[in-house]
C-alpha cells in the first residue's frame, strides 16, 4: 500500500514536471514575444504598428523558400538514406558521422563555403567556363535553396536513418524470404517508415529555413530575398519598435505552429513493432540498376555536401597558425554554454515527451504538445532575448546572466530535434517492454533501468550532443548579450572578421567546428558506454543510425 502511494506521488510529481516543461517552452517562445509586445505597446506613440505591404512580400518569400528547401531536402534524403542504410562500404560510418557537420558550420563560414563551390568564381563556374559553358548565376532563389539543402539534407538523412534502424531485423528477413525486391520492397518497408518520419523532418527543416536571414539574404542576391526575420530585425535595430518586432514575431510563430501542426497531422505513425533487436542484415538491392542508383546517390551527395565543407575546412586549416590566444578561453565559455544548454534541453525534452505519451489517447492533444516543442525554433532568437531581458530586468542584471540566458534560449531551440529523437524512442520502449514490465510489476526506478533506459540511452546521447553542438555555435542570442568577461567562440570569430583578421577568423571557425562536432560525438560515445552491458551489446547493436566514425571498416556485410 505504501509502495503504491509512493508511486502515485512520483507519478504526480512527474506529471507536474512535464507540464512545467511545457510551460517553460511556451514562456520562452510566445511568452518572451508577448513580453516584448507589452513593453513596446506601452511606448507606442502613433497608434498600433501596421502590417506593411513589404511584410506580405517578405512573408510570401519566407514561406516559399522554406517550403521548397524542406521539400527538396526531404526528397533528396530518401535515395541517400536508402543507399546508406543498405550498403556497406569503406568509410560509411565516417560519412554518416560527417553528415552532422554542415548543420554545425558557422553561418558565414557556410556561406563562403557554398560560394567557393557554386559562386561565380567557384569550382562549378570554373568547370563550366573550361567547357565553354556560361558561368551559372546562383544568386536568387536557387542560391537560397542550394545553401538550405546543403544544411538540411544531412539532417533529413539522419532522421530517415533513425527510421530505418527502428525497423526490426526480423522484418527484413521476412521480406527477403518472400522474395520482395525493388518497388514491392520499397512499398512494404521503406514507404511506411517514410510516411512516419518524413512529415516530422519536413516540419523541422521548414522551421529552420523560416528563421534563416543572413544566408537567405546573401545567397538570395538582394532585397527580393527578404525574409520576415529580416523585417523583425529591422524593426528592432532601425526604429527600436519593440511592438512591431513582437507582432511580426508572433505572426511568424503562429503561422509556423499552424503549419507544423498540419504537417505533423500528415504523419502516419506505425505501431512500433517488437523485435529482438538483432543486427539488421540486408540482401536487397543486388541488381545492377539498384546498385547504380545507390552509387549515384552516394557520389552526388558526397560531392554536394563534401565540396563546400572541404572548402571551409581548407580555409580553416590554413588559418590555424593565426589562431589567437583568446580562442581558448572563448572555447571554454562556449563549452559551458553548450553543456548547460544540453542539460536543460534534455530535461525539457523528457518532460514534453512523457507528457505527449500521457496524452496519446487524445491524439490532438499529443500533437499540440509536439508542436509546442517546435515553437522556440520559429521564434526569432533576438525577440526571445529581448523578452527575457525585459522579464529579468526587475529581478537582476540580465547582462550578468549572458551565458545562462544563451544556454536557456538555445536549449529551447534545440528542443524540436531532441523531441524528434526521444519521443519515438520512448514510444518504442513502451511498446516493446511495456507489457512485460507491467506483468513483472516493474515500477519507478527499476522500470526505468530495465525497460526504458536501454531504448532511451542512444537517442538521449544523440539529442544531448546535438543540443550541445548547436548551443556552442550560437550567434543569435549572444550577439544581444555579449558577456562582460569575454566573448564566446562564435562571437570571437565575428570580432576577428570585423577586425580584418580573416585568417585568424578562419582558424577560430575551424576550432568552433571541432568543438561542436567533438561535443556531438562525445555525447554519443558517452551514451553508448554508460551501460555496463554496453560492451556486450556493442557487437550486436542496431547497425544503423547515428554511429560515429572511429570504428571504420566494422559492420561490413558478412
Amino acid at each position, binding site marked *: 500500500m505504501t509502495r503504491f502511494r509512493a508511486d502515485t506521488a512520483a507519478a504526480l510529481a512527474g506529471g507536474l514536471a512535464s507540464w512545467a516543461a511545457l510551460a517553460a517552452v511556451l514562456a520562452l517562445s510566445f511568452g518572451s514575444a508577448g513580453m516584448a509586445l507589452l513593453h513596446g505597446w506601452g511606448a507606442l506613440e502613433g497608434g498600433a504598428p501596421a502590417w506593411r505591404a513589404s511584410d506580405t512580400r517578405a512573408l510570401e518569400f519566407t514561406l516559399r523558400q522554406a517550403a521548397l528547401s524542406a521539400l527538396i531536402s526531404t526528397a533528396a534524403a530518401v535515395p541517400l538514406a536508402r543507399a546508406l542504410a543498405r550498403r556497406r562500404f569503406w568509410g560509411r560510418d565516417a560519412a554518416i558521422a560527417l553528415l552532422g557537420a554542415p548543420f554545425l558550420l558557422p553561418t558565414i563560414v557556410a*556561406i563562403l563555403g557554398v560560394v567557393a563551390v557554386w559562386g561565380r568564381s567557384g569550382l562549378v563556374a570554373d568547370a563550366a567556363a573550361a567547357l565553354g559553358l556560361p558561368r551559372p548565376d546562383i544568386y536568387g532563389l536557387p542560391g537560397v535553396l542550394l545553401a538550405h539543402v546543403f544544411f538540411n539534407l544531412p539532417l533529413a538523412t539522419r532522421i530517415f536513418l533513425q527510421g530505418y534502424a527502428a525497423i526490426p531485423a526480423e522484418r527484413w528477413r521476412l521480406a527477403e524470404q518472400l522474395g520482395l525486391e525493388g518497388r514491392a520492397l520499397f512499398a512494404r518497408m521503406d514507404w511506411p517508415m517514410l510516411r512516419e518520419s518524413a512529415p516530422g523532418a519536413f516540419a523541422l527543416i521548414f522551421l529552420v529555413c523560416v528563421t534563416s536571414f543572413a544566408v537567405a539574404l*546573401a545567397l538570395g542576391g538582394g532585397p527580393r530575398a527578404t525574409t520576415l526575420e529580416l523585417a523583425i530585425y529591422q524593426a528592432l535595430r532601425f526604429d527600436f519598435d519593440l511592438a512591431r518586432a513582437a507582432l511580426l514575431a508572433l505572426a511568424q510563430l503562429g503561422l509556423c505552429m499552424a503549419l507544423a501542426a498540419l504537417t505533423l497531422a500528415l504523419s502516419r505513425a506505425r505501431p512500433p513493432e517488437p523485435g529482438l533487436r538483432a543486427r539488421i542484415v540486408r540482401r536487397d538491392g543486388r541488381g545492377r540498376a539498384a546498385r547504380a542508383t545507390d552509387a549515384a546517390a552516394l557520389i552526388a551527395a558526397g560531392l554536394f555536401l563534401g565540396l563546400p565543407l572541404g572548402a571551409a575546412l581548407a580555409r580553416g586549416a590554413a588559418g590555424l597558425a593565426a589562431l589567437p590566444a583568446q580562442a581558448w578561453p572563448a572555447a571554454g565559455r562556449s563549452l559551458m554554454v553548450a553543456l548547460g544548454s544540453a542539460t536543460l534541453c534534455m530535461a525539457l525534452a523528457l518532460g514534453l515527451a512523457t507528457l505527449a505519451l500521457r496524452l496519446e489517447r487524445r491524439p490532438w492533444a499529443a500533437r499540440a504538445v509536439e508542436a509546442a516543442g517546435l515553437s522556440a525554433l520559429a521564434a526569432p532568437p533576438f525577440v526571445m532575448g529581448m523578452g527575457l531581458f525585459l522579464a529579468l530586468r526587475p529581478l537582476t542584471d540580465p547582462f550578468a546572466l549572458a551565458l545562462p540566458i544563451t544556454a536557456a534560449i538555445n536549449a529551447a531551440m534545440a528542443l524540436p530535434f531532441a523531441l524528434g529523437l526521444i519521443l519515438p524512442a520512448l514510444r518504442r520502449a513502451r511498446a516493446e517492454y511495456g507489457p512485460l514490465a507491467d506483468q513483472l510489476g516493474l515500477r519507478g526506478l527499476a522500470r526505468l533501468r530495465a525497460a526504458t533506459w536501454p531504448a532511451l540511452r542512444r537517442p538521449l546521447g544523440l539529442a544531448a550532443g546535438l543540443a550541445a553542438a548547436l548551443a556552442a555555435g550560437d550567434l543569435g542570442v549572444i550577439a544581444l548579450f555579449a558577456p562582460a568577461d569575454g566573448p564566446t567562440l562564435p562571437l570571437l570569430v565575428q570580432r576577428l572578421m570585423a577586425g580584418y583578421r*580573416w585568417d585568424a577568423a578562419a582558424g577560430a571557425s575551424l576550432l568552433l567546428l571541432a568543438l561542436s562536432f567533438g561535443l556531438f560525438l562525445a555525447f554519443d560515445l558517452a551514451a553508448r558506454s554508460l551501460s555496463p552491458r554496453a560492451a556486450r551489446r556493442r557487437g550486436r547493436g542496431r547497425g544503423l543510425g547515428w554511429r560515429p566514425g572511429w570504428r571504420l571498416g566494422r559492420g561490413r556485410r558478412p
Partner: protein
Amino acid sequence: MMKLPPIAAAALAAALSAAPLAAEERPTLTVYAYDSFVSDWGPGPAVEKAFEAECGCDLRFVAAGDGAALLGRLKLEGARTEADVALGLDTNLTAEAAESGLFAPHGIAAKVDLPGGWDDPLFLPYDYGWFAFVYDSTRLPEPPADFEALANAENLRIVIQDPRSSTPGLGLLMWVKHVYGERAGDYWRRLAPRIVTVTKGWSEAYGMFLEGEADMALSYTTSPAYHLIAEGDASKKAAIFPEGHYMQVEVAGKLAASDQPELADRFLRFMLSDKFQSIIPTTNWMYPVAAPAQGLPQGFETLPRPARSLLFPPEQARALRDAAVDEWLDALSR
C-alpha cells in the same frame, strides 16, 4: 539549485561583501561601445590602460553589438542604465539618440580636425572615415572612375550591404542620395545589374570580395591600410570618385543618468587627447579627429583622400532614411 559546501559559501559571502569596498576606493566608469571597439585587437584595451593610468578609476568597456544595437540597448535600459558614456554612434543615429533624452550636454569646446567641422551640444566625434568601393588592383587594374562608370561597367560585379541591417549599407544609401538626390532611385535601378548580392553585414560582403566572388566591395577608404600595414599587401585599393565620398563620423556622448558625470566629462576630454587619438588609426582603422603628435602611422600616407566629403546633418539623415530605404527596396526588387 546547486548546494555549496559551507567553506565555499563563506568565501563567496566574504567576496561579495568585499566587492563594494573595493569599488568605493576606485570609482568605475562604464562605457558602452560597439563590439569591435572592445575586442582585443580594437582600441579598447589600449584606451583602457591609458585612461586608467591617469584617472585613478576603473574603466569598464561593455560590448553592445554595433552602433544601432548600442542605442537600442540604451533605450531599453532607459534611466536605469549603468552606462556613463556611450561610444560608437554615428551621425545616422545621433538625431534619434538626441531625441531619446538620454544624453546630457558635454559642455566641451571641442577643436576637432574634421572635414566640414563639428558643432553638436550632445555628441563629440572621436574618429571618421569615408565609405568607398575597395578593389584588388591585381584583379581589377582599371577601376571605374566615378558612379556613372560603376553603373555602366558591363562586366563589373560588386557586393554591398543591406541598409536595413548594416552601417556601411546605410552609408552607401546616404551616399547615393547625396550624389543623386531625386534621381537616386533611377541610379539604383541602373546599378542593380552590377550587384552580385546584398549581405546582412560588412563581414559577409568583405569576405565574399576577398574570396574573389566580387570585383569590389563597399567598405572604407582606410581598408587598404590594414592589408598594407598588417599584412604587407599593397594590392587592395579604394576607388576614389570625383562626386565626393560620404563620411562616417563616430561619436560618443555622456548619459544624463550617469552617476559619474565628472569622470564621464574627463573621459570625453581624454578621447580628444593625443593618447586616445594616436591609438585609433591602427586599431579602429579610421582617421583620428586630432592629428597625432607623431603624425599618422606609416602606410596611411599612401591612402587617397577624397577631394569632396559628403555628410547629411543628423536631422536630415534621419528624415531621409525611411523613404530612401523604400526607394532602394523598390529599385532592387525588380
